[in-house]
């Protein structure tokens, strides 16, 4: 089995930057990423997008090109289309690529699997034609696909970014239905002074809102009680805003309530996690160099707490520097990077307060489906708690919530929130699903063939 000083899982900004820095410090480095090309979701298809598409996606997207170029120029080995399905306590990694499974040994493991969108359970959210806002951006980045009747629903910077990108692409959204309650602005205001250090983000935020206004996109503020209608696909979205019930006909709805760390690998490895009240999500517990409670396992980027693409790149570099330093290799200068990282994070408390997830999504109505794979409703989860099921794992065993192919990615946080509320506790005490391998479904025949090819090959 091949062995590397550093194996990085994920080729977004954190993973690419970490690998570049690690190989620069003389560490043998392998990057495993499940997408066909580097970039992660934020810089998806950055290498193949033409200048036209880059222009409409914005200057920040273009930043990814520099990171990807440096990564490609580095000595780090890169394996695309590699789906990591297990990592054991000795940091032996099993991954699937080209229809076969392979194993590699990592001395240090860097989890750079970023963020996923927060589950947004609401009536009708499983209907075809409903996607996440991230999905809409991915369609634009990879294929230049836009919709003439897209309704954006939810809250968060990504909602506004997607709207401005659609406008730039000549297909403004049909409407924005924003779930930020009016009272939030007052609550968030106390973070404003601190956020001024991150004026660039604030300026970008205001610019996006201006662009939406200028394009004449209707914005329905303080929206609640959202329901998506349709029999076999979306036909309309309804909501209450400004004291009246409203209805917008559409075949395409995109939902967003912020992004949260992708915990699958750190949970699988039994790293310690904590619930962060401000981000309203579970975060792996990490030290100042992003090392988890398991020695030699690091989390670079949004996986350690949402910070955005710039922060992810810096964190990736810091992780590489720390690993290099530990083995006595010459590492880059971390102090300046840390200062920059702190400055970049200044805007986060304001964003987290203002764009905290909507109450309806945290506490869906009893009839709302929460686990999409196994079709388990919020009411069923509350009933299981009433019977005495103490936490997510018992609810999972009892109801099959989280047992489908997505393995709880689309319901886990919501299930923890619902159980906590039903028990009068916090998500922190009820905790989260235990994550079991394979991290992604694996053909039985592929498992049967594990180790059949000797000697094992690793990256090409």
């Amino acid at each position, binding site marked *: 089995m091949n062995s590397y000083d550093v194996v990085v899982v994920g080729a977004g900004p954190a993973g690419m930057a970490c690998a570049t820095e690690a190989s620069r410090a003389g560490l043998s480095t392998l990057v495993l990423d499940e997408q066909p090309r580097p970039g992660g979701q934020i810089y998806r298809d950055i290498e193949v997008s033409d200048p036209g598409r880059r222009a409409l996606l914005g200057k920040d997207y273009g930043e990814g090109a520099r990171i990807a170029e440096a990564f490609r120029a580095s000595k780090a080995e890169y394996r695309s289309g590699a789906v990591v399905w297990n990592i054991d306590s000795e940091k032996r990694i099993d991954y699937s690529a080209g229809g076969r499974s392979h194993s590699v040994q990592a001395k240090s493991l860097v989890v750079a699997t970023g963020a996923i969108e927060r589950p947004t359970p609401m009536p009708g959210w499983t209907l075809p*034609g409903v996607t996440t806002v991230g999905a809409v951006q991915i369609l634009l980045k990879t294929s230049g696909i836009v919709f003439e009747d897209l309704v954006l629903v939810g809250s968060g910077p990504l909602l506004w970014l997607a709207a401005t990108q659609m406008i730039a692409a000549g297909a403004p959204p049909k409407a924005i239905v924003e779930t930020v309650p009016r009272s939030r602005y007052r609550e968030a205001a106390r973070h404003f002074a601190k956020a001024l250090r991150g004026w660039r983000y604030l300026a970008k935020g205001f610019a996006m809102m201006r662009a939406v206004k200028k394009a004449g996109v209707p914005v329905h503020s303080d929206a609640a009680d959202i329901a998506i209608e349709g029999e076999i696909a979306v036909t309309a979205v309804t909501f209450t805003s400004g004291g009246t019930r409203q209805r917008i006909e559409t075949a395409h709805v995109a939902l967003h309530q912020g992004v949260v760390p992708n915990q699958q690998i750190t949970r699988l490895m039994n790293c310690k996690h904590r619930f962060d009240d401000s981000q309203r999500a579970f975060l792996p517990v990490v030290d100042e160099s992003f090392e988890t409670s398991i020695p030699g396992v690091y989390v670079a980027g949004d996986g350690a707490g949402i910070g955005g693409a710039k922060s992810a790149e810096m964190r990736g570099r810091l992780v590489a520097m720390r690993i290099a330093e530990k083995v006595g290799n010459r590492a880059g200068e971390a102090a300046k990077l840390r200062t920059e990282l702190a400055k970049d994070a200044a805007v986060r408390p304001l964003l987290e307060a203002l764009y905290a997830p909507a109450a309806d999504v945290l506490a869906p109505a009893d009839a709302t489906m929460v686990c999409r794979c*196994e079709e388990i409703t919020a009411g069923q989860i509350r009933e299981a708690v009433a019977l005495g099921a103490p936490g997510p794992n018992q609810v999972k065993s009892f109801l099959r919530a989280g047992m489908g192919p997505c393995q709880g990615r689309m319901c886990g946080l919501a299930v923890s929130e619902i159980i906590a509320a039903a028990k009068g506790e916090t998500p922190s005490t009820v905790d989260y699903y235990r994550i079991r391998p394979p991290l992604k479904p694996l053909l039985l025949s592929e498992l049967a063939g594990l180790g059949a090819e000797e000697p094992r090959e690793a990256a090409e």
Partner: protein
Amino acid sequence: MPQRIDGSGETVRFTFEGREVAARAGETLAAALIAAGETTTRDSVVSGAPRGPFCMMGVCYECLVEIDGVPNRQACMIVAEPGMTVNRQTADEVVA
């Protein structure tokens, strides 16, 4: 209907439910299907209700299709190849 904003690139053709679908070279099956107006890719294995691509990044498993006879493939993670035979994954197929 969805639209493509930029000029035609190289095209790859595959079939979905027996109909020909054109994909841009290098894009995923799910993107090509959405561009072709196909938002339903499978039926729920529990209720039979229709489902379609949701996250487009490999985490939700809503876009599972049958490709060349092999079920449970993620349309959003698999790049369209010429001549692929893609079908909706129906509830009957998995729970007969």
